[in-house]
């Protein structure tokens, strides 16, 4: 059976040589190499659950009066889109389960990508010859953020509608082209009836197609360049040591696929997420407080909250506040990420190829910079929930925002310096040559005294 398959394929495609090499390809074992796989498997769960959800979603802003099974909304005027998600959630069997798995998978997807990116950053895996794949990975992150936000906005509920309103305001803030771009994307002044159908099209076709394409490129480059590996005896710049693809690595990886799917299923089954029937349909004059976005938008929300209250008037034109916090800041953030491999090469003057990974303590300054940037993003994320925090802590939102503005400067510096020192210290200990043998032999002399001698000159007893 196997023999016939191999022969039949080779007769027609000449695959024997490739197959032999591919099946024995080495995959280095390290837990941190699974992070990218977790992202991939989240994406597979997203495609599977999303395909099911797509059959039930009605991408239309057409208003209708609700008369479904959920009594609290009876008689409420809502869009057909919102009504279809309420119906899917509360009347379709397995609908809510799959919708919640889908939402959780989206959150974990972006999280896995982010942590994977941190791994790549802190171990220097982005260095030559992998700069291109770092850029491709960043594009995947941006696509994932876009897929997440468009999906989050589809149900047309009060919470996500408010998020769309903010996104629109950020887009129109862009000088020269912002207003016109916003009209092209949203189909008119907000709230436009065209918006939901367009979000749907982007979410179920354009973005997933791009994600599949760019992901394929990402994996093809990994396949071609082979994996990086951590330093260890027997591992060099010229080899890769690891489990063979078939069967060891394949089994472990398929196991991981099911494990990721199982965890996402448990989250979707037992942890409620985005109960849109409680939020109510989007109505432009209504808003709920507190309103928090999905976690990966938190830093942008925080930036908008802490951003300066600037509105610049230039030659009869306006550059409003959201441009600085909502466009310039994330733009600079991603620009820094995109150029980092080249920037680091400039700084270190190291243009050689690296197949062996750094330990984060090998390059303390990079670890420090990375930690500082992470601290910056985390402060912004917490600032995105400052109204909730203010309530918990019991101080005014204004005071808390002022505190966050200070933390936004101080904390990254502090965390960066600490990470630098910490990494340096660990590096010194790791790299110190093994302590010389200082064992002594203490022997008693005939006279009753004691003599100390180094171990190697051990005297017979």
């Amino acid at each position, binding site marked *: 059976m196997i023999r016939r398959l191999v022969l039949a394929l080779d007769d027609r495609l000449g695959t024997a040589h490739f197959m032999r090499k591919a099946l024995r390809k080495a995959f280095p074992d390290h837990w941190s190499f699974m992070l990218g796989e977790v992202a991939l498997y989240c994406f597979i769960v997203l495609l599977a659950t999303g395909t099911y959800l797509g059959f039930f979603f009605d991408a239309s802003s057409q208003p209708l009066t609700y008369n479904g099974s959920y009594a609290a909304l009876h008689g409420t005027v809502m869009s057909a889109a919102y009504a279809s998600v309420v119906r899917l959630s509360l009347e379709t069997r397995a609908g809510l389960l799959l919708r919640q798995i889908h939402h959780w998978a989206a959150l974990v997807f972006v999280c896995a990508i982010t942590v994977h990116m941190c791994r790549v950053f802190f171990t220097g895996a982005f260095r030559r010859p992998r700069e291109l794949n770092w850029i491709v990975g960043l594009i995947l992150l941006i696509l994932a953020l876009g897929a997440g936000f468009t999906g989050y906005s589809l149900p047309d509920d009060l919470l996500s509608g408010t998020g769309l309103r903010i996104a629109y305001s950020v887009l129109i803030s862009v000088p020269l082209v912002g207003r016109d771009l916003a009209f092209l994307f949203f189909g008119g002044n907000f709230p436009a009836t065209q918006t939901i159908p367009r979000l749907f099209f982007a979410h179920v076709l354009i973005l997933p197609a791009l994600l599949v394409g760019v992901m394929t490129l990402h994996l093809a480059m990994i396949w071609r360049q082979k994996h990086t590996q951590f330093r260890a005896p027997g591992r060099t710049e010229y080899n890769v040591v690891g489990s063979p693809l078939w069967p060891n690595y394949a089994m472990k990886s398929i*196991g991981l696929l*099911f494990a990721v799917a199982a965890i996402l299923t448990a989250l979707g089954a037992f942890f409620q997420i985005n109960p849109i029937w409680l939020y109510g349909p989007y109505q432009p004059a209504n808003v709920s407080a507190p309103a928090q976005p999905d976690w990966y938008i938190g830093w942008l929300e925080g930036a908008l909250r802490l951003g300066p209250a600037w509105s610049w008037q230039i030659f009869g034109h*306006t550059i409003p*506040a*959201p441009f600085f916090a909502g466009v310039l800041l994330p733009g600079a953030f991603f620009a820094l990420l995109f150029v980092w491999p080249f920037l680091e090469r400039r700084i270190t003057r190291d243009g050689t190829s690296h197949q062996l990974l750094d330990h984060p303590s090998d390059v303390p300054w990079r670890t420090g910079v990375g930690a500082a940037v992470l601290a910056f993003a985390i402060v912004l994320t917490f600032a995105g929930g400052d109204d909730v925090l203010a309530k918990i802590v019991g101080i005014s939102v204004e005071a808390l925002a002022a505190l966050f503005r200070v933390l936004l400067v101080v904390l990254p510096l502090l965390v960066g310096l600490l990470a630098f020192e910490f990494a340096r210290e660990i590096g010194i200990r790791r790299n110190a040559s093994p302590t010389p043998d200082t064992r002594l032999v203490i022997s008693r002399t005939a006279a009753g005294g004691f003599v100390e001698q180094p171990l190697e000159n051990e005297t017979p007893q």
Partner: protein
Amino acid sequence: MARGKMIAIPFALSVLGSVWFAAAYALHAGPQFEGLGLFVALAGLALGIVLWAQFAMPHEQVVDVRDTYPSLQNERLAAERALEYGADELGRRGFLETFAIAAIGALGIAALFPLRSLGPAFGAGMYQTKWRRGARLVSADGVVIRSDDLAVGSMLTVFPEGNVGDASSQTVLLRVPPNVLQVAAGRKDWSPQGYVAFSKVCTHAGCPVGLYRASAYELLCPCHQSVFDVTKAALPISGPAARALPQLPLQIAADGSLEARSDYTEPIGPGFWERA
């Protein structure tokens, strides 16, 4: 039991999980029961496969030799030459190359034109709202507001009559003691009997400015916590908003109903480049 046979247990559990899931679906048991079955089915598979790989398979390590690149110098030169050869061949007829590039460029630009259909008249609806001179203020239920309807200290979301729910026209109507208002020169007649009305669309990012601290006469935006001072024509005093909320000029009609004196005198909502 042998170790190999133990690994069969999670697979067996997985089968039970699938059966459970199907049964939960058939019985309308709800997401928790459905999810439990699906979870056991998937987790059993995951566990079985991982245990299998870990305990019932030889752990071998293979060593791959990396392809070395950059490639050999002569390969690189040959590749370069192959590319150059074609480019030279194209360049030999420079005018053809120019025309071909012009044709492709023109096609590319022409292909952009249909994109224009995606957005209707740029900016339409950003400069006016549905408020007109004499438009009566109505609540979200469509009830006309009369001058004795609101107690001092209260706040209500209002729309122009006939346009309830209109996103751009949403307005907050507040009644404050007339003596606390610091009325600007051109706005003497805009706030009869302590009634003031401001656009409800935040000038920062467009959220509805829906919270009111009546004791301090402050309007709050729940999205990014901008605070506007009602007594100073909704000037921002805290948070990221940089501009005051536009004020709707009010008057009281002969029958006591509140109505607008005109539309807003400036574009409502967040700023944009074309806004003066």
